[in-house]
């Protein structure tokens, strides 16, 4: 049949082999054979595009499709029913042999379902045996889904230094950038002015001002921090300090060659401001805010105009 499009094509063949042996009318027979050998072969040769192709054989056996053009959907179904009804007889031997073979190329699901049922209706002895062998072969034997996660933290920091004359003597910090919570040093160059040591009380809206000579060389500016400095059992040194923990800056000064009036004025100022915040303007013209921590500051009398006082001040630069 020569045609370019076929919408329905159905080939149905039905063939019935019937073998009938009738009795000869005797009382008994020992040998009688009855058999049908039937082989059906459906062959579809596709030369045009086909939407649905359903070759099937009602009674087995081989479905073969040769592709020369693409096929959208293909369903191959073999239904095989073997029914042997021997009737009532002394010796029963029923054997069903069924082999299913599925070959999949684009599908990852191969399923063989085989149900074997043997029922012996009436017999003296029952011996049922099923032998089942299923083989499935897939190109990918194992497909594993792995969930992998890598957490990678990258940190970068930058520092530098410039080799230039005077770098060891002049204010020249080289501050880059980092990732921690540490506050970077201030790179603003300090300004060292000149002033005379001046104490004011109270710090806010001062009412009392005491001007003294600047201290002699040897005055100290101390930094003190609250830190944990411990050594572990394995010998590792651990130093830790929280930024919120206390920091203390202390100025210790000794002022010499004061007059008696200046020394007494200092004692009076100390008594009035005891334990309260005062202001201190230092010799570099920097303003400090804090308290005097030596209430028992002593005056040493070494002669006329030779009083010496020593005290400590704890505070912060404002």
């Amino acid at each position, binding site marked *: 049949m020569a045609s370019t499009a076929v919408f329905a094509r159905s080939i149905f063949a039905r063939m019935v082999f019937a073998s009938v042996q009738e009795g000869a009318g005797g009382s008994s027979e020992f040998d009688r054979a009855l058999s049908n050998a039937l082989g059906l072969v459906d062959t579809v040769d596709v030369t045009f595009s086909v939407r649905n192709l359903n070759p099937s054989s009602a009674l087995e056996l081989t479905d073969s499709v040769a592709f020369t053009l693409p096929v959208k959907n293909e369903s191959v179904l073999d239904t095989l029913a073997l029914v042997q009804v021997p009737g009532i007889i002394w010796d029963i031997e029923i054997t069903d042999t069924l082999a299913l073979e599925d070959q999949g190329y684009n599908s990852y699901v191969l399923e063989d379902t085989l149900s074997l049922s043997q029922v012996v209706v009436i017999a003296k002895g029952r011996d049922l045996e099923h032998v089942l062998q299923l083989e499935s072969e897939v190109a990918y034997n194992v497909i594993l889904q792995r969930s992998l996660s890598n957490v990678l933290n990258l940190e970068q920091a930058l520092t530098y230094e410039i080799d230039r004359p005077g770098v060891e*003597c002049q204010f020249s910090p080289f*501050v880059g950038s*980092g990732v921690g919570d540490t506050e*970077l*040093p201030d790179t603003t160059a300090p300004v060292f002015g000149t002033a005379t040591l001046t104490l004011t009380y109270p710090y806010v809206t001062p009412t009392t001002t005491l001007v003294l000579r600047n201290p002699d060389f040897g*005055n100290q500016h101390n*930094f003190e921090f609250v830190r944990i400095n411990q050594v572990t059992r394995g010998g590792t040194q651990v130093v830790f300090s929280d930024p919120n923990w206390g920091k203390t800056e202390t100025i210790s000064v000794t002022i010499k060659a004061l007059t008696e009036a200046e020394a007494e004025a200092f004692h009076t100022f100390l008594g009035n401001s005891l334990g309260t915040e005062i202001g201190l303007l230092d010799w570099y013209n920097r303003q400090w805010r804090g308290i005097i921590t030596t209430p028992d500051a002593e005056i040493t009398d070494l002669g006329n105009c030779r009083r010496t006082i020593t005290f400590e001040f704890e505070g912060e630069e404002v």
Partner: protein
Amino acid sequence: MIRLRAPVPNLETTSILPSPQLGDVKNRRHEIGIFRAIDGTKRTFVKSNTRRLLTYDFSLSPGKAEELKRFIRSYYGSKIELRNHLDEIWHVYMVNNPFPFADEGAESVSVQLQFEGTQVS
């Protein structure tokens, strides 16, 4: 010349100081415990380590002293890298507390720093 860089390992700040004054000190940090029995026998327990204590005295200009003060304020609790005047590299902590800055002259501020740590190269 002394080079301080901090914090280890993410170095972000560098300060260059002059070499320390003569008389710098290096100590080991071993510890021993001595227990004497009533019959006079002694038993010692040793805690050894590879740490050293370096004590340097510096004489700085006021500007350099201010730079060092700011460095200390930021990294007093951090491990720092120290390259000393012998070109040795150390990973250390600044362990003295307090840090005493004393005005020794119009342009001279003295300070003693103590570093404790290990030499890395």
